[in-house]
């Protein structure tokens, strides 16, 4: 009498939980038990103790091959899925790395073209020198051309000078999520070298009497721009990666003193103390700056090939 409601409650709970109960109770494939039952009933109850005895018979050659094949497939499936998941999960990373490879390839192409340009310009210069050497006025002109080329980055130069190295602050990298939320005024931007900083340093070096400057291996010519695209600094439209090496050729002590006392250098020393950016000035005896990209042809065109 008293137990009846309780029984009903239990039954009700059992009914509502039956799906889960079924799952946990019948976790093992019922097929295994059925096979055993069938074998036992087929062999008769008298044979049941012999179940152990015919144990070796349970793996005849052919069926063992079946088992091995099944497990082989199972392992293959697991490994394939794992490899698949690993290769697919960082799809965005793959896209990113393929883009990076693209950029690297294009940069290599540009480098190759650049060196070809340098070679051809050397040929042109040699031909011009031969042509101008014939006359007196030609020789004077050749000297003038050489001086002008030096000034506008047309020839590689070497000599004493300063090496100014700028580096981003080694702060903990900001949360990328936060970075996407607030594209400006990042806490991480405080210690990052921007294009303006490089421009300031370069201008201060010119003002200090530098005769030739290269930034990150790119010679500055009168037409070189130092710009930014995203967070990368572009010099002559080629991306640089930190640390940024600014090499200025000039009379060492004068250049070092004037640049060291410049407001820009003082400002950067403050930045280095406050934000932890890298800012070093080194005086070196033998520095080289490469040849710069020549001015693009605006009006001139190569002649049509002769018929």
């Amino acid at each position, binding site marked *: 009498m008293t137990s009846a409601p309780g029984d009903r409650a239990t039954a009700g709970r059992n009914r509502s939980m039956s799906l*889960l109960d079924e*799952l*946990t109770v019948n*976790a*093992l*494939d019922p*097929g*295994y*038990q059925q*096979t*055993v039952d069938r074998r036992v009933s087929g062999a008769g109850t008298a044979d049941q103790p012999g179940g152990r005895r015919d144990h070796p018979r*349970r*793996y005849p050659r052919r*069926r*063992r091959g*079946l*088992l*091995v*094949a*099944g*497990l*082989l*497939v*199972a*392992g*293959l*499936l*697991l*490994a*394939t*899925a*794992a*490899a*698949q*998941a690993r*290769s*697919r999960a960082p799809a965005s990373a793959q896209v990113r790395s393929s883009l990076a490879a693209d950029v690297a390839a294009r940069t290599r192409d540009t480098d190759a073209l650049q060196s070809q340009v340098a070679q051809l310009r050397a040929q042109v210069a040699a031909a011009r020198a031969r042509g101008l050497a014939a006359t007196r006025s030609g020789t004077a002109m050749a000297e003038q051309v050489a001086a002008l080329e030096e000034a506008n980055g047309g020839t590689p130069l070497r000599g004493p000078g300063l090496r100014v190295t700028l580096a981003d602050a080694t702060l903990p990298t900001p949360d990328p999520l936060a970075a996407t939320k607030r594209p400006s005024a990042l806490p991480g931007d405080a210690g990052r070298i921007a294009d303006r900083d490089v421009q300031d340093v370069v201008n201060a070096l010119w003002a200090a009497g530098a005769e030739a400057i290269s930034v990150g291996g790119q010679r500055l010519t009168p037409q070189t721009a130092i710009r930014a695209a995203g967070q990368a600094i572009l010099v002559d439209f080629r991306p640089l990666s930190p640390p940024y090496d600014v090499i200025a050729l000039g009379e060492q002590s004068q250049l070092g003193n004037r640049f060291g006392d410049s407001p820009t250098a003082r400002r950067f020393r403050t930045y280095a103390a406050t934000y932890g950016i890298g800012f070093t000035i080194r005086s070196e005896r033998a520095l080289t700056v490469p040849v710069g990209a020549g001015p693009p042809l605006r009006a001139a065109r190569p002649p049509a090939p002769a018929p």
Partner: protein
Amino acid sequence: MIPAIALVLGVALGLVFQPGVPLWLQPYLPIAVVAALDALFGAVRAQLDGIFDDKVFVISFVANVLVAALVVFLGDQLGVGSQLSTGVVVVLGIRIFSNAAAIRRHAFHA
């Protein structure tokens, strides 16, 4: 022993050759793997219970994988793909868990 070696060999083969999975088969792979894991855990438990049968194992393995793929396919066609897959994962997950618990009881008597 030989079956275990076969399993390891299968994994090794998969890792070494990394067979490409055709695109149309890719959605079915994860759930097929869960089904395969369920079959494997069931087999181990059956072995420990002393009622292992290779034919049952192979058939249940193949059928599990196929049914799981079929469920995903049906779900995709009906527009409930992810929900149906979740259901399958939950059910198989519970089974894997209770089989693993049974294996643990066999192995550690605890």
